């Protein structure tokens, strides 16, 4: 039995004044799975994940959650199932960290109701699970990039989604924070059956943690499959248009480098 609760069917998108950003992309996401979307800059990764998050209406094709088209879902109910982490959250106002994380509880609170004590507890738990509980009282504008990313992740977790979509979350993180992020995601997959879809440039990470890799080139899927199948010299050379890229499996890890 396949447990694919979330599917993209023949997605395509073209920006009004630009070339086609995504064409004919189909994906299936199972419960407790981790999928990485890789590709060169401008290959349509962000456009694709924005369509998956319901932020961008597909030009054609559709996104299906539990057999129902995403546009048919009531926004608040959809928000209980899918959380999205933008590349960066610009902080225009000095919100408190706990306040930001509590905003993730919104889909679970009826309109015109204020957050209850239970919601605060859930928010604090989410902060703890990303190792950011000590930041609860801090102001978001005063945090480092890495700390901020952990807070935003906690916000998404407070939403208690089944599917977490992340758009290049590790780009502003150092090695320690990247490792922490991946550990947190892996743990949530085990504990809650969370499904993760992440746009990333971090090929080293994708090899060991993810179980499915989707490689995009010029808006199309060039290859998808297990890390061992996609993270391979020939495929990567084509994905990035870089003939000197090399990939090698070592134990459970994949090493990717570029020859001088």
């Amino acid at each position, binding site marked *: 039995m396949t447990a694919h609760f979330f599917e993209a069917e023949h997605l395509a998108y073209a920006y009004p004044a630009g070339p086609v950003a995504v064409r004919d992309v189909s994906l299936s996401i199972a419960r407790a799975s981790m999928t990485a979307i890789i590709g060169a800059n401008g290959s349509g990764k962000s456009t694709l994940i924005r369509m998956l998050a*319901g*932020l961008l209406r597909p030009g054609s094709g559709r996104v299906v959650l539990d057999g129902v088209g995403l546009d048919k879902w009531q*926004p608040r109910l959809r928000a209980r199932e899918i959380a999205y982490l933008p590349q960066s959250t610009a902080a225009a106002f000095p*919100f408190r960290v706990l306040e930001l994380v509590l905003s993730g509880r*919104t889909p679970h609170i009826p309109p015109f109701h204020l957050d209850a004590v239970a919601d605060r507890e859930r928010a604090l738990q989410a902060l703890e699970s990303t190792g950011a509980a000590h930041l609860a009282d801090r102001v978001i504008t005063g945090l480092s990039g890495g700390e901020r990313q952990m807070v935003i992740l906690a916000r998404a977790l407070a939403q208690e989604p089944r599917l977490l979509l992340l758009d290049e979350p590790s780009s502003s993180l150092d090695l320690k924070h990247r490792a922490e992020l991946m550990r947190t995601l892996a743990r949530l997959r085990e504990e809650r059956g969370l499904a993760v879809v992440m746009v990333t440039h971090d090929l080293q990470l994708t090899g060991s943690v993810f179980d499915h890799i989707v490689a995009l080139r010029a808006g199309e899927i060039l290859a998808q499959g297990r890390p061992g199948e996609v993270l391979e010299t020939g495929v990567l050379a084509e994905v990035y248009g870089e003939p000197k890229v090399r990939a090698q499996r070592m134990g459970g890890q994949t090493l990717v480098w570029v020859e001088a």
Partner: protein
Amino acid sequence: MSAAASEIAAPLRARLIRSLAILLVVLVVATAVGLAVGRQQINFAQLSSDPFARTLFLRLRLPRVLMGLLVGASLAVTGAALQALFRNPLADPFTLGVSGGGAVGASIAIAFGWTARVFGTPLLFLAAFGGAMLAVTMVRAISRTGALIVPGALLLAGVVVNLVSLAMVLTIQYVIDPDSALRILRWMMGSLDVVGLEPIGHMLLVLVPGWLALLAFSRQLHLMAIDEDTAATLGVNVSRCETAVHTLSSLIVGVAVAAGGAIGFVGLIVPHAVRLMFGEDLRIVLPGSLLLGGAFLILADALARTVLPAGELPVGAITGLLGGPAFLWLLRRRQSYAVM
């Protein structure tokens, strides 16, 4: 900092009740001061015995204080809403050109002598609403490239729309008859002068539903202030929220400007004062700005009425003198965020 940190430790309900209770007391005190202060001393004994004092109080003093409350509350609450909507702490009805657009609409109504009412609402208000709506639509269209609002472009577009609006008002003033021109001039300077309670009633008819509708968007605006994409993935219908807040802001500001003229910076100072005192949550900032905005303009007007030995200062001059420096301070603070 530590005071604000303990703010967040308390649940939102408790913070909301406490902050609104404090601001309500501030408003009541401000109203009492506004009613007590004036060229003519009026006390309670006179109100019951002296018919002249009573007339003065009911026809001039009370309406003027109520006018300050309504206009101040309106400008402040829309300022808070627009700041959240555009995620820009420098946004307010003036910096976004909404007031300017409302002023053009109102000038046209005054110039043509439109005194008719539609369902009890003066045509003047509707004209100001139309002008404000036009301005906000233009500013938004200019500052939007693709899916993004460019922060610098937003304020620049707003300021330019305001300048053009001012030029249009001046043009209208020069081509119409001297009588109407004088009325426009006096109104443009920003004054809360009003005779009798009837105009107040007309304003309430539009403003109270407008305020309530805007407050109903508090939670959506709170999420929008954090991040537009985040708000959308948390269940906010972003485009519907934007349209509603634009329309309601134009309506509220249109009426405030048609009635009170050019009173600047209330929408900027007041929401930030509420933020500094009670934190960033829009569910507190919006109703809090409504209360503090009313109190602030009543007090500013009390000052305007009494600061000169003879005659009075336009209240817009007082709010401008306070608001300009506040704007610059916020600009500096914002730049220090941008670095981080």
